[in-house]
């Protein structure tokens, strides 16, 4: 399989990340809903990945957000890249066509399940990947987990089978380090069990390496080092912004402080 690239300039990607950050903050404030912390940390790597897969490469893949509470970030990316604007436009509105606060599979034809309860995504992704394997198609499935979610037992159970079955699953971990229980070395646990790649979501070079792993065959675990609200100066890593909604004064202050961190 050919290696995927990411040809868009870093400058242009920074502009897209900037616009995405602004959109997420404004939408959450407008509808008084959404998990802005995880949405922003996940967007830092998922926006360039979706850009590469959808816009530059028209690549065939499937995706599942096991950390379904980051749906605002996912819908914002679909909206920004004009893949499907409806979920973002109708996010947590009172309309009958609205989308609730966790990912709904009707939002995107490559999304294989509606999600929200932590620990459910990887087993479903594994089942889907198994059907691809026995059909000899092996379309890769991307499953996005949060580091907090790594506490769920189903993740560890799934790993027992994924590597034995050599399934074509790409596990992307949004490691934003915001777990408040004492499991911060959980990444070391995974590294001791299976092969992982450890990247910074603020390094353009690392993101490109991760995109190339998506086209390799077999399971991959990519730990993306992120920080909640990393691109909003003085708001970084504060627990209140996991699910907290900014008021108008806070929003205005945040908007002034958006500064995209993306190194070479």
């Amino acid at each position, binding site marked *: 399989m050919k290696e995927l690239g990411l040809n868009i300039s870093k400058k242009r990607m920074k502009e897209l990340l900037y616009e995405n950050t602004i959109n997420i903050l404004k939408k959450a404030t407008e509808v008084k809903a959404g998990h802005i912390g995880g949405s922003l940390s996940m967007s830092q790597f998922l926006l360039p990945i979706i850009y590469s897969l959808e816009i530059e490469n028209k690549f065939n893949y499937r995706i599942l957000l096991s950390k379904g509470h980051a749906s605002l970030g996912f819908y914002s990316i679909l909206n920004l890249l004009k893949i499907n604007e409806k979920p973002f436009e109708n996010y947590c509105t009172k309309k009958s066509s609205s989308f609730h606060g966790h990912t709904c*599979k009707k939002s995107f034809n490559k999304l*294989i*399940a*509606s999600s*929200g*309860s932590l*620990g*459910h995504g*990887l*087993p*479903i*992704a*594994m*089942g*889907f*990947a*198994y*059907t*691809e394997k*026995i059909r000899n198609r092996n379309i890769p499935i991307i499953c996005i987990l949060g580091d907090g979610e790594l506490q769920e*037992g*189903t993740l560890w*159970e*799934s790993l*027992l*089978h994924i590597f034995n079955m050599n399934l074509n699953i790409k596990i992307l971990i949004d490691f934003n380090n915001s777990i408040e229980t004492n499991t911060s070395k959980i990444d070391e646990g995974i590294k001791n069990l299976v092969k992982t790649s450890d990247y910074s979501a603020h390094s353009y070079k690392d993101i490109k390496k991760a995109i190339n792993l998506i086209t390799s065959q077999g399971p991959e675990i990519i730990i993306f080092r992120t920080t909640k609200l990393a691109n909003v100066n003085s708001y970084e890593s504060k627990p209140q912004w996991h699910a907290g909604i900014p008021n108008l004064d806070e929003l205005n202050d945040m908007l002034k402080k958006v500064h995209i961190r993306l190194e070479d």
Partner: protein
Amino acid sequence: MRNTLLKSISEKINLDNKLIVLLGDLGVFQMKDAMKKYPSRVLNFGVMEQTMIGFSAGLASGNYYPIIYSITPFLVDRAYEQIKLDLIYNKNNALILSAGASYDYSTLGPTHHCPHDITNLLSINHPLISHPFTKIESVNILNLILQNKEQAYIRISSSELDISKYSKLEKVELKSQKANLINLEKFISKNSLSNDKLVILFGPDSILLKDCVEHIKDSDAVITVSVINKKMFKDLSEEINKFKRVLIIIPYEPSQIIFKLVSRINTFKNKPNSILVLHPKPDFYDSSYEKIDIFRKYTEETKII
């Protein structure tokens, strides 16, 4: 009944390449030939029931039909959220085959008892639940489910009950039961001259409840319920309203069934004079009981009307 169903599934695997069987470390011996012949479609997934249900949801979203087989409490209790969200909410159809419901594993203690599987599944809108009375019926139900690839649950009991063997009873054709899937069957007493007493049996364990046999002998009609779905509640409530006295025997936690029946019966003008439910008393039976002893000693009566 277990072996009959597993044998039937082994045969179906040959004919339908969309079937994938997941064993929760149960039935491995009975399925060994099928596992050898179809290693990619008969898997011993191991003892990780939540992950197994999630995995089956992924199989269904990849356009296969999973059949999941394990012990009731570990499937229905432990993986309840996965059944609710990954299968039912996400519309991923699967057949759950469970062995050891209610008190089938009575001597193994409360960790292996599961008298509340059906009520829990009904409360999350599981659309098709079945507890066949006989081996033949279990295969018929299985065949229809596999044909339609529906969201389905078959509770395999260690008991069997063939009500047609009661000499005083005669089967009658119900107009409502001409569809493919027979939800309920009606038998009337050859000696009966009236519509006085109706006895309803929910699954083969019913016969184990206290005084069940006497109630059957003393009845004007008996209805056996094998499949619990929306249509069954409609058809059964209409039958109930033809009688003066109704005894419903539910050998498991009955609350959802009672609730759904009562809400229908209350819409009728003429109701029976009395409706009584016989069911096991809910408790943790923390001794090495025989199944029949739990049912006989701890039968409780709940009066509905």
